[in-house]
């Protein structure tokens, strides 16, 4: 009897947790499919399905452009971070040299910088380079949070690979660059997929820099666009549009995360637990 009660309690706890985790997304989806006065009546099941909001954000706002911006920025950030981090991780994880652990600590320290602490200095750098209101400026500035993290995680992975892997190649007289691209790159692929995805999510979600370093609607990324969607009047937020945009940018991300679930969790925990 006691056992049964325990099982019921357990099931209820799980059920409540699931509702808490998933209800907001469900409710956003529900709202995004309503229009007009229906929006302001709370319902829990879809009564009629209306794609009006989805059509409106594509036609009335520069939403397509914002999505393209976000994809471009995040992809470039991931590509550059991974390329730079892989070579750096090789040096930090496989070669003994003086000052290595100081360097590792410094990199970890950078990942602790509050973004706001570099905002005015970065603003100046971006202006000097002529990158204000330019996606290149965002790609450049995002390195401050993606690079330390990717270097750190790839270094921990690189460090754990057995020495024998390289020895044969060194004896064969292969140079470090060949060793990295031919031997480590394939072995590191799973780790790179996980860290790459984490960097992609971080860049995709970034708000403070994107808000500060861009000015025009055409240069905005998705988070800024969603934060600044305006309605017909200043006082009325078009909740239907906001929710439709939210659903559009969230679903692909969730799909990606669920597909790569295992690797992602491995990457996340490697950064923290193993380190």
């Amino acid at each position, binding site marked *: 009897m006691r056992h049964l009660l325990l099982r019921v309690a357990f099931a209820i706890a799980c059920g409540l947790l699931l509702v808490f985790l998933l209800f907001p997304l469900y409710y956003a989806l529900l709202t995004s499919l309503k229009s007009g006065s229906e929006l302001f009546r709370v319902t829990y099941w879809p009564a009629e399905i209306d794609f009006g909001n989805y059509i409106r954000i594509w036609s009335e706002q520069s939403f397509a452009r914002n999505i393209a911006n976000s994809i471009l920025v995040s992809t470039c950030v991931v590509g550059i971070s991974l390329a730079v981090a892989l070579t750096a991780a090789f040096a930090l994880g496989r070669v003994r040299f003086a000052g290595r652990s100081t360097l590792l600590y410094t990199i970890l320290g950078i990942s602790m910088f509050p973004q706001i602490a570099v905002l005015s*200095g970065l603003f100046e750098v971006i202006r000097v380079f002529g990158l204000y209101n330019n996606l290149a400026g965002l790609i450049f500035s995002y390195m401050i949070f993606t690079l330390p993290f990717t270097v750190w995680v790839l270094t921990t992975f690189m460090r754990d690979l057995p020495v024998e892997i390289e020895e044969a190649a060194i004896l064969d007289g292969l140079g*470090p660059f060949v060793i990295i691209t031919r031997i480590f790159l394939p072995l590191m692929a799973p780790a790179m997929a996980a860290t790459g995805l984490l960097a992609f999510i971080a860049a995709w979600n970034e708000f403070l820099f994107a808000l500060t370093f861009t000015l025009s609607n055409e240069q905005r990324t998705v988070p800024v666009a969603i934060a600044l969607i305006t309605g017909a009047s200043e006082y009325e937020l078009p909740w239907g549009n906001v929710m439709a945009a939210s659903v559009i940018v969230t679903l692909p991300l969730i799909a990606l995360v669920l597909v790569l679930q295992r690797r992602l969790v491995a990457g996340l925990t490697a950064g923290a637990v193993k380190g």
Partner: protein
Amino acid sequence: MPRRASISSQRVRAAWLFLSPMLVILAVVAFWPLGRTLYFSLTNATLVDMTHYDFVGLSNYLAYENGRWYGVLSDPQWRTALRNTLVFAIISVTLETILGVLIAVLLNTTFRGRGFMRAAMLVPWAIPTVVSAQMWSWMLNDQFGVINDILLKAGAISEPVAWLADPVLSMASIVLVDVWKTTPFVALLALAALQMVPKDCYEAARVDGVHPVRVFFHVTLPLISPALAVAVIFRLLDAMRMFDLVYIMTGATDATMTISVLARRELVDFQDVGYGSAVSTLLFFIIALLTSVYMVAMRLDLGGKRP
């Protein structure tokens, strides 16, 4: 032997070569801007013209003039923002840690649908913060929000509550959204740590007939606490620089304004680069100080020693 030595020195040279792109990028994107922000905090630069400014010493931080104190340290808004930031960080991280460990323990048992549960946990974490902020603002809307509707129907409240306007409730709402969004992260880290606890620890306790709750506090918790300490420091650092949720959900109101929100307002909206930089720099030092205290207190070694 000479051949070996030359190989290793060649490798060291290659290592520095491989490090150089990262070092250059980090210098331009992190160290230089950090130094410049520190420098700007000692000037009266404005955003309109960042090239012409005067050196004003520490007067952005604190100055005494004509019988009054000026500067960030004497600014009541800064003190409010500091208090808000600390309150937010401490409450949200505490809740996230407790809930995260509880959920991890729940998920560490085997049951049907565990995989599904684990996948569902990743959902709030994968949703962009801006989107979460908008979703919850809509749910917490005082007139049309679903939260008020549920609570009214359940009889828990008798009239709609203005979640995002009331000073205490707006902070509570921000904490709630942050807990919703980041507890899964803590839970996943705690779960990974739990799975590394050797099974025989539990076996021994079970054979001795120790109560499960005691086992948790005396066996499990000490074993996972190093991993938990790392998760907590990551969360604390994140919480101390909180910007997006507050900026979108409540804006620069006294009840919820964090230091990051205050700094950006001074810097961008008021165009006062000197003052804004002083606010930012102080946040940097506060975070650095808290991190060092925490690391010493927890005797954290974040891995530099292990080659």
